[in-house]
């Protein structure tokens, strides 16, 4: 048996296709990006080695970079709050529903399977001012007509407006992850706490929360890294505008590379996005761990 499975040639035949495609399309390009980030290059003329100039430009003088960075933080906060908090709320609601749980889950998850282009177009319509879109129409109906505005071109609201659709579409995903964690809590733990007279809130705060904390942490990490690379919806809805109020790092990087044809600087930003995601993961783990003790 061991002899059959220790077949070196077969192992290579089986492993090589996956390894080759993966190396060629995922791993090698990361290294190339790092390499390109030390050059000034428009894709046509000769590559010019400029050392860390792209990075000093990025951290030093580029105001748009920092604007995009701070926009990204707001974008991430809105999305993580929506996905994890609302996801948790719905998950708790779901544990209290007896009938139609499966149908509820299935329907709730539905927005996650639709292309981001369609989501962006749907929300463009929701936010529309002229002709009146769903959001402004609803505001008018409940007597808040004064609040109606062209959300996507309003300097104060555009960033929130492009963040909400991305948060909205994956609430169902986090709801299901957190729901599975909640229903895996053994029933006797809960009963024991009930008998001791714990209220629903206390039960949730002191018993359920600690038990689902690992899953909650994973959810926060995934929502954060997912939002850090958020691109499609802001790119399609506003393309960074008006001005730079909805510019995010991925959209800025994309425009730098493919509109301004500054491949070197674009690569430096791409490298930054990877590092930023890694730092975010480490930071969240740290925070959640220190809370425990």
């Amino acid at each position: 048996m061991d002899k059959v499975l220790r077949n070196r040639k077969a192992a290579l035949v089986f492993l090589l296709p996956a390894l080759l495609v993966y190396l060629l399309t995922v791993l090698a390009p990361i290294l190339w990006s790092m390499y390109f980030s030390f050059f000034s290059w428009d894709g046509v003329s000769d590559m010019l080695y400029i050392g860390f100039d792209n990075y000093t430009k990025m951290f030093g003088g580029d105001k748009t970079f920092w604007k995009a960075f701070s926009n990204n933080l707001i974008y991430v906060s809105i999305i993580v709050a929506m996905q994890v908090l609302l996801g948790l709320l719905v998950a708790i609601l779901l544990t209290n529903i007896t009938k139609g749980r499966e149908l509820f889950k299935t329907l709730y998850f539905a927005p996650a399977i639709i292309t981001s282009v369609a989501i962006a177009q749907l929300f463009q319509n929701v936010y529309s001012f002229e002709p009146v879109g769903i959001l402004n129409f609803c505001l008018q109906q409940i007597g808040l007509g004064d609040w109606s505005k062209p959300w996507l071109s309003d300097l104060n609201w555009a960033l929130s407006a492009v963040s909400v659709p991305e948060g909205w579409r994956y609430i169902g995903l986090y709801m299901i992850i957190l729901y599975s964690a909640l229903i895996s809590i053994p029933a006797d733990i809960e009963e024991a706490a009930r008998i001791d007279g714990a209220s629903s809130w206390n039960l949730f705060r002191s018993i359920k929360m600690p038990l689902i904390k690992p899953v909650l942490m994973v959810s926060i990490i995934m929502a954060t890294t997912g939002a850090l690379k958020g691109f499609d919806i802001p790119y399609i809805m506003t393309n960074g505008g008006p001005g730079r109020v909805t510019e995010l790092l991925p959209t800025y990087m994309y425009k730098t590379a493919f509109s301004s044809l500054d491949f070197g600087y674009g690569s430096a930003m791409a490298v930054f996005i990877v590092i930023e995601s890694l730092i975010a993961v480490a930071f969240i783990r740290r925070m959640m761990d220190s809370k425990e003790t």
Partner: protein
Amino acid sequence: MMKISGYSKAVLLVVSFALLVIQVYPLVWVFISSFKGPNDFSGDNPLSLPSQYTFDNYFNVWSKGNLGTYFSNSFIVAVTTIVLVILFSAMAAFVIEKMSFKWSQSVLFLFLCGIMIPIQVVLIPLFILYNKIGIINTLASLILPQVGFALPISIYLFVSFYKYISNEIMEAAVMDGCGVYQVFWRMIFPLSRNTIVTVVVMNLIFVWNEFIFANTFIHDLKSRTIPVGLMDYIGQYGLTDWGATFAAISITTIPTMVVYFMFNKSVISGMTAGATKG
């Protein structure tokens, strides 16, 4: 489970239902609006039903646009990507989990790193590479990176399934004279039917909806896939033909919806696995 009764139960039901409406109604609304005529879109009640149901939008997007081309491109990309992902990841996972060799854990780790990688970081190098080797504007430029990015989670799913296959049954097959290829093709691969379904449906949805690669590597109408094609109905001055857009969204979402409602457990489990394996 937590039991709540009477008044609070009613509140809970109302809240749950309201949240469900917020989540699902917009999708229903897109579908309803696809039957509206042009006058209905300039009206002052976006939530109203069509004043007259019309199939004009569907007729227009199908006959005037390039939707047929986009459909067949998306179909080719999806089928090719998924076949390659299934074969490559099932085989690689078999080597990693069952043919344990010295570096199998390192290879697995190398693949799992891919789950963390944001797609944006590979765009520039791949764009340059594809230009050099001349596959920009071809469907191959979409298939290759999508296979690459689908491999990590697919391999992870296959490896976790293979863990449950006992070595005894493989041993029995070997005793009967099966070689390693036969053990895989006749036994392990057919046994993993459930994992195959999960990987297929999950990737079908991801690939069908993929936007960034398609927007970056394809500039030629002939090789365009559906997501980018959905933006065709934005005319000059940014005015969108909403009837056509909603009809196009409705038609192109039908395949994913059908797959989703047929295999919703597999879709959900695949996508949550993708999200939680950080």
